[in-house]
């Protein structure tokens, strides 16, 4: 008998809000996180906007403990973890007695710290490289720092699968719970905004308006789209064994019903679309539901010219006739593309929708390609009764993950 996996709380820090409720409200109000960058200089780069968390005062959340050994990426994660632990009732005393794990999705962790460590060593000599920075230059540093800060002694894993990292991390955590290897894990993702990755994405032609520095259309699915707006954030959901959560008497926000992880072995459009379709079908199968039982889709579409299209056509292929009616949201229309954090941000946003039925619109969406199949993708926030939602995460490098989230079970669940 497969164990059931539930969500008992979440924590988030993003350019729009630093709480799940705040995030849901901001998204439903159609607020955009994308603004001119202040974190670093953008001279010579034809794109000047991003989803930057500003102001960012870690001490407001983390108190007086020494933050010098902890870089920006880890600070973001510490805050999200704090929120999720508080929301799920995992007090310090409880954590001292029982192991809580962490499954973290990230693309870079902190490429900025790695690069700064390298540059300082080059300029001042290896004897004067920074030991503290080196400790933060491993890609599992944020997960390690968070485990130390919050005393998380359970399974601690870092997973990288590009834009799909956050969903992959949630799937990984759910696997451990289903398999009886763990009872509680924080799962989600983190990514910081920094010059190194920003310049990299710009030169790779992935940012909206690049390389020509033209008008920026980071609007998911829109026919005018020309790339994504890079962003940062951290989001974690507390995943628990359903019986253990019930025994703890904690409220349940959602259930993880099923998930999948596949790869597009080539980036030819037909193959990529087929991979998305396969990811969706496998996740539905794993959840034991059919397309008609999915009430909404949270897509990972970000304004990427090709990837948004793969996602739309792939979902449509899997949903058949249901595709045209399926209500669709794409929160990157407001949050931007936060890479390793994005899937978890999608999931945290969806918790709000599961709770009050408000599905955020896709901000700025106006024009469509002729064969765009998802008529349920609209600009306005609307009310949709959502019992089960599908999240998809499609990466430009071929990673395709899907996850089905459902409302808390009615029978046998806590009040």
């Amino acid at each position, binding site marked *: 008998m497969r164990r059931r996996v539930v969500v008992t709380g979440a924590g988030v820090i993003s350019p729009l809000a630093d709480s799940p409720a705040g995030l849901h409200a901001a998204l439903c109000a159609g607020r955009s996180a994308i603004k001119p960058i202040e974190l670093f200089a953008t001279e*010579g780069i034809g794109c000047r906007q991003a989803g930057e968390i500003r102001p960012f005062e870690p001490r407001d959340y983390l108190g007086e403990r020494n933050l010098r050994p902890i870089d920006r990426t880890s600070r973001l994660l510490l805050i999200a973890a704090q929120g999720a632990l508080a929301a799920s009732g995992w007090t310090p005393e409880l954590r001292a007695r029982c*192991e809580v794990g*962490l499954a973290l999705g990230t*693309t*870079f*962790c902190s490429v900025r710290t*790695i*690069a700064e*460590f*390298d*540059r300082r*060593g*080059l*300029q001042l000599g*290896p*004897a004067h*490289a920074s*030991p503290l920075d*080196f*400790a933060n*230059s*491993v*890609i*599992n540093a944020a997960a*390690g*720092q968070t*485990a*130390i800060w*919050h005393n*998380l*002694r359970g*399974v*601690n*894993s*870092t*997973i*990288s*699968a*590009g834009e799909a990292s956050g969903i992959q991390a949630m799937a990984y955590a759910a*696997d*451990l719970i289903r*398999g009886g*290897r763990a009872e509680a894990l924080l799962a989600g993702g983190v990514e910081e905004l920094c010059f*190194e*990755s920003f*310049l*990299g994405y710009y*030169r*790779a032609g*992935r940012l909206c308006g690049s390389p020509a520095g033209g008008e920026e259309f980071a609007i998911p699915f829109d026919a005018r789209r020309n790339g994504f707006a890079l962003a940062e954030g951290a989001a974690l959901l507390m995943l628990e064994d359903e019986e253990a959560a019930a025994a703890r008497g904690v409220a349940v926000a959602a259930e993880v019903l099923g998930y*999948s992880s*596949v*790869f*597009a*072995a*080539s980036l030819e459009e037909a193959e990529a679309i087929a*991979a998305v379709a*396969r990811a969706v079908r496998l996740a539905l199968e794993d959840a034991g539901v059919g397309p008609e039982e999915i009430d909404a889709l949270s897509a990972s579409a970000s304004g990427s010219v090709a990837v948004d299209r793969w996602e739309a056509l792939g979902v449509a292929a899997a949903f058949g006739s249901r595709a045209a009616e399926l209500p669709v949201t794409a929160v990157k229309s407001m949050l931007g593309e936060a890479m390793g954090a994005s899937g978890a941000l999608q999931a945290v946003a969806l918790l709000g929708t599961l709770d009050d039925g408000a599905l955020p619109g896709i901000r700025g969406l106006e024009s469509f390609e002729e064969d765009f199949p998802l008529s349920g993708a609209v600009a306005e926030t609307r009310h949709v009764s959502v019992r089960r939602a599908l999240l998809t995460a499609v990466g430009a490098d*071929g*990673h395709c993950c899907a996850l089905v989230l459902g409302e808390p079970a009615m029978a046998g669940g806590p009040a």
Partner: protein
Amino acid sequence: MTGLGLVTPIGAGREAVWEGLLAGRSGFAPVESFDTRAFNVHLGAEVRDFRAEPFVRRLDPGALGRASQLAIAAARMALADAGLALSALVPERAGVVMGTTSGEPREVERFDDRFLAGELDRVGAEFISLYPCHMIAAHVARELGFAGPNAMFPTACAAGNYAIAHAVDVLRAGRADLMLAGGADAFSRITYTGFARLGAIAPERCQPFDRNRKGMIPGEGAAVLVLEPLAAAVARGARIYAELAGYGLSCDAHHMTAAHPEGDGAARAMQRALADAGASPEEVSYISAHGTGTPTNDRLETLAVKRVFGEAASRTPMSSIKSMIGHTMGAASAIEAAVCALAVAEDRIPPTMNLEEPEDDLDYVPNTARNTQVRLAMNNAYAFGGNNASVILRKCEV
């Protein structure tokens, strides 16, 4: 485990590497891939004379970072070793999970060189297509056409074990019929500078468990293991090296670069792995240690083994191949898992080289390989951030 692919500082390919390890071959030499004059240490375990071309056939080797090249080479070797032709596989049911510490650090180094030279205009599209660590597993899958589950576990020096553990879970859940699991890391000045700055690099010799040990020696390499369900392996008449009997993961939650002073996390990982395998410590025939050669790691690792094994500890041979190939970072525990598989398959265990005065009374298999029955082998790995992972392999009686 039905296939092994290895690229290491002492050679490439299962046979060359295994025979080299049993013979106590050393992979240490002065670092060549960058100038170490400004350092007070100069030794490394680099992979020499590696050519990607014979292995990277579908992708353009010039469009890949070094770790990806090493990974693809190991993957192709593993499939050949397993007697598997790509045409025999269902692409959607074949996945790739790899571990790494740094991904492709040379790409950041290139970025930084340009940054410091005031030449950022030379940073092109290649930074994003080469650098992110997920590209390693992506490149392997793209080279082979694998469309199943695909992810990287950048859990530093324990990464290989994390990848193997996840691959086992994916196969058990029926989400794939074949998984390539392993690890890869490329030699880099960033990594070298970091460990040198921590004072962790030995100036002359890597002597795990020796009283006079002075540190680790950074290395590079890749290992890929072919994992498939037992029934499928038997049905196709595959040679089975070993069975994945169990694994255990834990987190110290103590310090970023130093292990828990009582070996707490390491002990929990071992205990979990044993419980998962349904085995008692006495049944373990061989331990492949993390054994980096640093004063702290080796002492705490010995302590943790004694905690878990009790009286059986001094009777359980434990050796560190890092005494020969150095610390290959994310590849290390994958290479060591392959070694455990070979130990189980052939009843031979590699030595801990350079061991003159053991610091403690465990059987560290000093300096000479040994023929001994190996029913159960335990592979331990410990990483920065307190990530601990133990994987147990069992002789397959079929």
